[in-house]
């Protein structure tokens, strides 16, 4: 055995198993996603067609609708999730420790369940009949009934509402930890100068939470780009007139219902580039560090 092998063999043994699966099921597939996107791929094979799939997508109104829906969903959902997480973390801050632990658990509990299960409950709540819970609530105020998931005008709104009505527990935990890390002296100094709660939030808390906010914006945006189960379950995979079609829903149906794997790979590449763009913006913003 050479000196090199003796010295480093154990390191490679330690990383070997994970790395082997990582290369086989992640690294190579990511590369293949790009090569498949340039092929007219079906289940039996494919031929190279250059950028034809992307040209097809650029002219496909359903794909453009899927991109539009996905971006709209992400914008509203992320804005709501960041705001809610910050508000709740702010409310939790003055509580004693046991209170914080209790409420954090309360907000996290609904999130341990699968997207499928959650989407099913919302499908039930937003069903178009008068016995649907959303319509029953509206009826109390003399409104409705609305067709919700049964109509091309309201289905996307129902899908978005189903997401923003839930407290983002993960964001609450991260914001709580970050707020806990802000030095007390800053607030004491603000008190001495007679700053009210709004000034303290505006000039101390929110600016110092910027790294957490950026991290959450990126993570929540990339997660929102991947919205699938809600659409698949709540609106039978796209809703009336493709009202709720999203990119991932379209990838699924293009590949696994219509067998057009090349075209679906091109859609996946677009999704990938959208996620990369968001991540790049994050890294550029994070260059400017926050100091206490």
């Amino acid at each position: 055995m050479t000196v090199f092998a003796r010295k480093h063999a154990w390191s490679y043994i330690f990383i070997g198993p994970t790395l082997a699966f990582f290369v086989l099921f992640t690294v190579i597939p990511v590369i293949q996603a790009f090569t498949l996107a340039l092929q007219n791929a079906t289940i039996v094979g494919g031929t190279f067609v250059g950028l034809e799939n992307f040209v097809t997508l650029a002219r496909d109104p359903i794909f453009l609708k899927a991109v539009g829906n996905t971006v709209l969903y992400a914008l509203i959902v992320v804005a709501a999730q960041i705001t809610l997480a910050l508000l709740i973390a702010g409310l939790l801050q003055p509580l004693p420790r046991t209170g914080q632990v209790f409420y954090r658990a309360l907000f996290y509990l609904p999130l341990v369940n699968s997207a499928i299960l959650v989407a099913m409950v919302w499908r039930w709540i937003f069903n178009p009949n008068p016995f649907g819970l959303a319509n029953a609530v509206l009826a109390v105020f003399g409104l409705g009934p609305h067709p919700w998931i049964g109509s091309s005008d309201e289905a996307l709104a129902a899908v978005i509402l189903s997401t923003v009505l839930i407290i983002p527990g993960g964001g609450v935990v991260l914001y709580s930890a970050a707020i806990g890390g802000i030095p007390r002296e800053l607030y004491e100094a603000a008190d001495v100068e007679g700053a009210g709660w709004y000034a303290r939030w505006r000039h101390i808390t929110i600016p110092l939470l910027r790294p957490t906010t950026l991290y959450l914006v990126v993570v929540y945006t990339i997660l929102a780009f991947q919205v699938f189960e809600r659409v698949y379950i709540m609106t039978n995979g796209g809703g009336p007139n493709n009202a709720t079609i999203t990119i991932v829903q379209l990838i699924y149906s293009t590949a696994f219902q219509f067998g057009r794997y090349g075209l679906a790979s091109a859609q996946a590449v677009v999704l990938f580039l959208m996620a990369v763009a968001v991540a790049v913006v994050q890294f550029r913003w994070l260059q400017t560090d926050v100091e206490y």
Partner: protein
Amino acid sequence: MSSIRGFVVYGLLTVAGVLSLFPLYWLFETSLTPQQFIVKVPPEVVPRDLSLQNYQRLFATTPVVRWLVNTLLIAGGITLFHLLFDSMAGYAFAKRRFPGRSVLFWLVLSTLTVPAQVTLIPVFFLLKNLNLLDSYPGVILPGFADVFGVFLMKQYIQTLPTELESAGRVDGASEWQIYQHIILPLCTPALAVLAIFTFQRYWNSFILPLVVLRDSFKYPIQVGLATLQGEFNTDYGMLMTGAAVAAIPMMLVFFAFQRYFVEGIRIGGVKG
């Protein structure tokens, strides 16, 4: 905190909590309501006639127990793999110096934000070529490629003191013994976080088993649930009962290991 402000704070938090938990409540409430009362106008928010009728129908007409066992095997298998191999890899990346270390770790890190759907089609083809479609390995093996745990374990092991390893080497311990008897016992908190996150993730995974499995007896619970809903006439009693059966195990795990969930978010960030 003044009492008025305290009242407002607790009031707002409680309202938010109730709203957040309401879908779960509604799920269990519907599952316990007999079929004929489910479609009542207005709906009964406080149930009057509780019954296990929906549960009897679900267990009689669907292989839901089989689905739960399948999910336990799939999620459990993937979790065991990661507990062993991610701690090994995390240790190597955190404490050992070897050629290619930083390049490989950078590769691991850079794929953490890649949406899983990007690799879905190539993985499907790979499984087809390996003759693994419609098989348990077909849904388990891709789960082994998840590198979130490597990252989590590296972050944790980095914080452990190096002196213990050095002392072990002086005492003549082999490299494996150092990992097994020195590093691994110190990793218990991180391993708990990893186990819970991985198990939760694969208990809830949907799209990969949906495209890989054909035989409905091999389905994990999430895919099985999705087959319960008809396109036009949905039996919401059955649907909510299936969802309740899928929710209970995960919620028990949460109640038992609640502190590790919060800890995991702090160490590893938000994963959905």
